[in-house]
């Protein structure tokens, strides 16, 4: 009878929707909009870290920018009484990511760190994930990009350079997470501790508006930020369950 029991146990496991809850980590980022000045240092850092191509003026004019991270700017009010709202926007690493289900070849899926992973080698470029993503944070390689000498010297050896016809997006600097996990393993520890891993944007943010950490560790910085009453997620009504949590800007007159 153990065969049937085994089958039933596995059936229940595969039918359980919260499969990702058993993962080791649940990497989370918080963005404190009260601290963000919209300086775009994070955008530059991301571009340097992740070998994001410099697409050039013409491609930008055609709407084909490739930065994995962008600062969305919204203006409020009429001149001269205007307010700028800057919202850093990048892959939200949703737990219920719409982009993952639509990929016909499983080029994007949820990995063991609870991250939304993109496998460039598997991607066939249907671009459906970009359509399904409500945050518009997936970028497509419309052509091959090149780095004028000596810029190719600064390419990050830990990150692959993507070819034409492939979708790409923010990875939460998965190469750094891997290194931190390796280092922890070498030290004989089971888990990465808070503060040991920082994506390039978090590392660069001058106002510390971005905080990164593991939500499963109750002591971590992000876990404590999550309880903040200003915390919200973008487009919450779509039930994508993002891993990026924003802290609302504090209004002077509110």
């Amino acid at each position, binding site marked *: 009878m153990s065969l049937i029991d085994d089958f039933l146990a596995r059936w229940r496991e*595969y*039918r359980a929707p*919260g*499969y990702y809850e058993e993962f080791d980590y649940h990497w989370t980022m918080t963005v404190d909009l009260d601290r963000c000045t919209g300086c775009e240092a994070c955008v530059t850092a991301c571009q340097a870290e992740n070998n994001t191509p410099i697409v050039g003026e013409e491609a930008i004019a055609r709407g084909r920018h490739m930065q994995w991270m962008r600062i969305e700017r919204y203006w409020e009010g009429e001149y001269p009484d205007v307010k700028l709202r800057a919202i850093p926007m990048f892959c939200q690493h949703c737990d219920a*990511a719409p982009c*993952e*289900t639509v990929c016909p070849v499983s080029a*994007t899926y*949820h990995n063991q760190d609870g991250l939304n992973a993109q496998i460039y080698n598997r991607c066939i470029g249907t671009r459906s994930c970009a359509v399904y993503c409500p945050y518009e944070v997936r970028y497509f390689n419309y052509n091959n990009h090149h780095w004028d000498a000596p810029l190719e010297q600064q390419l990050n050896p830990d990150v692959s350079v993507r070819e034409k016809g492939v979708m790409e997006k923010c990875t939460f600097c998965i190469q750094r997470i891997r290194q931190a996990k390796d280092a922890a393993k070498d030290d004989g520890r089971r888990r990465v501790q808070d503060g040991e891993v920082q994506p390039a944007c978090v590392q660069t943010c001058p106002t510390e508006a971005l905080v990164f950490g593991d939500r499963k560790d109750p002591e971590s910085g992000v876990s404590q930020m999550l309880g903040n009453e200003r915390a919200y997620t973008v487009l919450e009504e779509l039930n994508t369950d993002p891993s990026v949590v924003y802290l609302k800007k504090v209004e002077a007159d509110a």
Partner: protein
Amino acid sequence: MARSNALGLFGGPKAALAAAGKLRGEGFESLDLISPIPLHGVEEVLGKKKSAIKRFTFFGAILGGLGGFTLAAGTAVLYLHPTGGRPIITFPPFLIITYEMTILLGILATVLGFLISARLPVFRERIYVPESAVDKFAVNVACDAEADFKRATEILREAGAEEVTEIAPGGGQ
């Protein structure tokens, strides 16, 4: 005399059907009507036909349905890719795969059933009248003895056959 076939050519379906009915009434069992169009009323004359095609379609479709779900669920289990917070075995999408596979194998099995039950394709020559692909209706009777052949020829002529030929079994004209 060994077995031979009497083949009567008719100008129209009514006469051909009448001849076939009469032959059948006389006890000729091995009868073929060769016509350019599917004839209505063959069943009343030559008896009800049964074909195994529906069984092929039915079991093909069932096999396709089972195979479709197994394909979707089985491959999902072989290499676990959690996507979008959905279960590994998800019903709504896998049922669509099941649906399509049901129809695909249903179609393929129908074709197989058709080919087997109509005994096509053919690799050896069989009795055939090229005129019957245009506007002639042929009745082909297999006769065991010369007396039978004579009787069959008579019936065919009586029913209005324009031409009656004797064909050696297994060969063309």
